[in-house]
């Protein structure tokens, strides 16, 4: 077994991406095939019926339900404004004195009026729902009445775990090196609306500070699970995330605990500092895995064709760059020097296939093959 399949996350400075942008309900697509769009452009929209407000008109007017019709100033289908008189009595002996008037509590329209109950059903104005492009790119497909497919060429980082949903912003490096722990004091008001990059760890304090300042997203090598529990108020049982309301999106690139951010990830972010990126924390770790993403769109040449490369299986080979993903040496990076075939007993007495790796710290160690991942170069 000179080589073997190994899991690994994608980190690359050039990839063709495709994103479906679909409305929750049928509506109107605002762009056409071939259009170039920006991440924050609205590509499709629809509107939903407004909320219904039951309103006891006869009761408020002090008249029997069956007589309400005599006093109404509106009919079904009418548009109404908040404060507009919708029913009114004629006053004492029809003189207009001591009139009682009922005003609309909302802007909207009249849905129905019941002669049986004396109630009106009012409906608030329609609610617009919009879908943005999320990434800068080209509309390559229009799905009629539903949405579009946007494609682009990007620098791309797949995170291992994330929290909260889609956002965009400029990349700002707060860490000087991938081993840094994010100092909350560095998160100043100029970070507002930005995507900030930590090194090996971002603490609960840093996450809270970022949310307070209005940072859009944090990209960090690691985070402590204990901090996440405090942040969310519950233990994450199964990793299905992305809908948390925590005020800031979080993308973790390496794992839990303080873990040095992989150098190629850190360098890539540094290279694109100041550029606009699209980020989300959606994670589903189960069959059909979803991982958080950092997408940095690259400029497209006029008429350039976007051709996605075929998916490749990363494999363990002599010389492959790998990261150790479990203790001992968790987080260390090195190159494979040997792939012995025989099963080897490790400290836990488990008999496993191992590999020999020369770590960046100079040590050469044996480690189970299952406990490393290949870093694409």
């Amino acid at each position, binding site marked *: *077994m000179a080589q*073997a*399949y190994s*899991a690994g996350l*994608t980190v690359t400075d050039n990839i063709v991406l495709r994103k479906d942008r*679909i409305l*929750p*309900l049928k509506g109107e697509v605002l762009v056409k095939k071939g259009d170039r769009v920006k991440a924050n452009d609205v590509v499709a929209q*629809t509107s*939903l019926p407004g*909320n219904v407000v039951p309103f006891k008109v006869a009761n408020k007017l002090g008249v029997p339900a069956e007589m309400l019709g005599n006093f109404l100033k509106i009919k079904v289908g009418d548009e109404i404004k908040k404060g507009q008189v919708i029913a009114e009595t004629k006053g004492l002996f029809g003189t207009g004195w001591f009139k009682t008037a009922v005003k609309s509590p909302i802007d909207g329209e009249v849905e129905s009026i019941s002669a049986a109950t004396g109630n009106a059903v009012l409906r608030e104005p329609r*609610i617009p*729902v919009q879908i943005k492009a999320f990434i800068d790119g080209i509309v390559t497909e229009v799905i009629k009445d539903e949405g579009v497919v946007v494609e682009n060429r990007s620098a791309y980082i797949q995170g*291992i*775990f994330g929290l909260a949903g889609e956002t965009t912003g400029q990349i700002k490096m707060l860490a000087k090196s991938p081993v840094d722990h994010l100092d909350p004091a560095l998160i100043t008001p100029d970070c507002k609306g930005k995507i900030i990059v930590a090194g090996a760890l971002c603490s609960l304090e840093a996450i809270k500070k970022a949310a307070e300042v209005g940072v859009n997203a944090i990209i960090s090598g690691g985070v*402590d*699970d*204990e901090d996440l*529990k405090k942040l969310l108020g*519950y*233990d*994450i*049982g*199964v*990793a*299905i995330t*992305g*809908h948390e309301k925590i005020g800031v999106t979080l993308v973790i690139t390496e*794992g*839990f*605990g303080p873990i040095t951010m992989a150098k190629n990830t850190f360098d890539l972010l540094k290279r694109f500092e100041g550029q606009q990126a699209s980020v989300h924390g*959606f994670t*589903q*770790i*189960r*069959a*059909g*895995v979803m991982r958080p993403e950092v997408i940095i769109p690259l400029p497209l040449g006029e008429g350039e064709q976007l051709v996605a490369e075929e*998916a*490749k*299986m990363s494999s363990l080979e002599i010389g492959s760059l790998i990261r150790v*993903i*479990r*203790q*001992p040496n*968790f987080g260390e990076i090195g190159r494979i020097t040997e792939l012995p075939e025989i099963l080897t007993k*490790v*400290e*836990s*007495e*488990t*008999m*496993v296939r191992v590999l020999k790796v020369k770590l960046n710290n100079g040590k050469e160690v044996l*480690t*189970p093959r*299952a*406990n490393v*991942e290949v870093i694409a170069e």
Partner: protein
Amino acid sequence: MQYEKKKLTRIIATDCGSTTTKAILIEFVDGEYRQTVRGEAPTTVEAPLNDVTRGVLNAVQELEELARLKYNNPNITLIQDAKLVIPRNGDIGSDAYVSTSSAGGGLQMMVTGVVAKMTGESAERAALGAGAIVMDLIASNDQRLDHEKIERIRHLRPDMILMAGHTDNATSNKHVIEMAELVGAADPKPRLGSSYKLPVIYAGTIKAREDIERTLGNKVGLMITENLRPTLERENLGPARDEIHNIFMEHVMQQAPGYNKLMAWTVGPDLKPVPIMPTPAAVGNIMQTIAKQENIEVLGVDIGGATTDVFSVFTDEHIFNRTVSANLGMSYSISNILASAGLDNILRWVPFDIDVKELRNMIKNKMIRPTTIPALFKELVLEQAIAKEALRLAFVQHKEFAVSLKGTQKSSDIAEAFSQSESGDTIVNMLTLDLMVGSGGVLSHAPRRHQTMMMMIDAFLPEGVTKIAVDSIFMMPHLGVLASINEEIATEVFNKDCMVYIGSCVAPVGKIKEGKIALEARIELPDGTVFEEKIPFGELRLIPCPAGSFGKATLKPGRGLDLGAGKNQEITANLIGGGVGIVLDTRGRRPFVIPVEAAERVPRLIKWMKELKAYPQELLN
């Protein structure tokens, strides 16, 4: 379909688990069928591969390489052009390929109700009772706008939706129909986008069934079952819970990216398809066969990466029960064990101090990188502590399901209507149980069988006299599906290579004071020696007794304790030996208590682990 034995001289069988794909080769060698080599590879259900057959090829490639080494024959070939070669022609190919699958992993559901605190919560309880994770509860009155609810359904990609709403005597069924319209508008698709429609179970008012059928019938895989809240005061969770459980086991858990492709690969020697079996169905068949062959009561468990499946055959009528705890497992679901069991329950099995922050991070790292294995002693101990809790919780769930009457209804007054739970009398009786069988990675591949014995005793707390066996290298699923093409071969390999007795456990039931005699044991061992001891309460003893032999025992429980024949009653028994031996466990049952204080607990754990030879003695000091 059954094939003749002579047509099956080399068979490849795989189990595509949520985390690992395990392949075995079964061959006719020297006049008998044996399991000869074994390979495994990560299950490939993540981009960029997203195709379960890649994991199969990787695992079979390992089989091929190991077979070449074993027979010193470089010509043995199982794969050509990225496909399995069937039928066999000399060194090339195999006669059949069969597979089980549980690659889809755990069960994550959404539930809907009309009033969140009433039908919504009942639906949530039914889903939780079936072992599901409830990703969200959507109710007519939950303040969210319709499009937000629709977006939520689409984004979360549930495996199944349970709909409840209105009592059977409600005057209106408008809201539940509106909810169905909303589910219809979301047009939910199975997350792995394969050959079936997303299962939606309707368990709301009977009056809306036709409307629901009309609204959703063509869009989803609609199943209609009894109303889980027939009246305001009565909850009827059983039918909905059982429906969820069955659909998950039979349809959802085996699905994975590339599943359709895999279905085309599993064929017999005539290239006719052999259906892929869900892993728990295959293991369940094996457990039932054991119980029937030996005419005994059996409790079996298969602990995987995403789920833990428990099987039992109890009572004279041999009632079989099978449960899948959909979110208790050692990789994808490991963090859910922590969330469900709590940190203290895990730490009570750990014989050393550990920084809680470190432990939490370790668990989460296993969750996000599920294929890693514990290389360090401390990490092994921690994983096995977590496994004990997964097994314990799965067993609790199993006992709740394994009741004499299914679908027990519970009535209560209106004050209790908000806090109901299902009840029933379990038929699981540990005192009459004859045999426990353990399977799954953490049990089959524990570095020492002693650890397997320890995990099974600590998790299931067997009572009286119980035989304990293990699936040698994890091949019960493979043999379960192999039986569908030839029962004889499956039985032969099962008896020769699969089930291994590791020993027996003797445990008096009850609790007495520390230091009092809990068990007087006299055991005549096959080598002629006699073990004789009055064992105080709170101890463990391990008496070696080789596989295939028995210890003839006279066992007298301490005052007030019971070994199955009644309190204080002496019994005689032939205690089966095995790779571990005979364990005498006087730590008490009903209750079984571990001291809370670390200062008291840790020395005791170390003493028990040393006695059981569970870990290297020097590492426990």
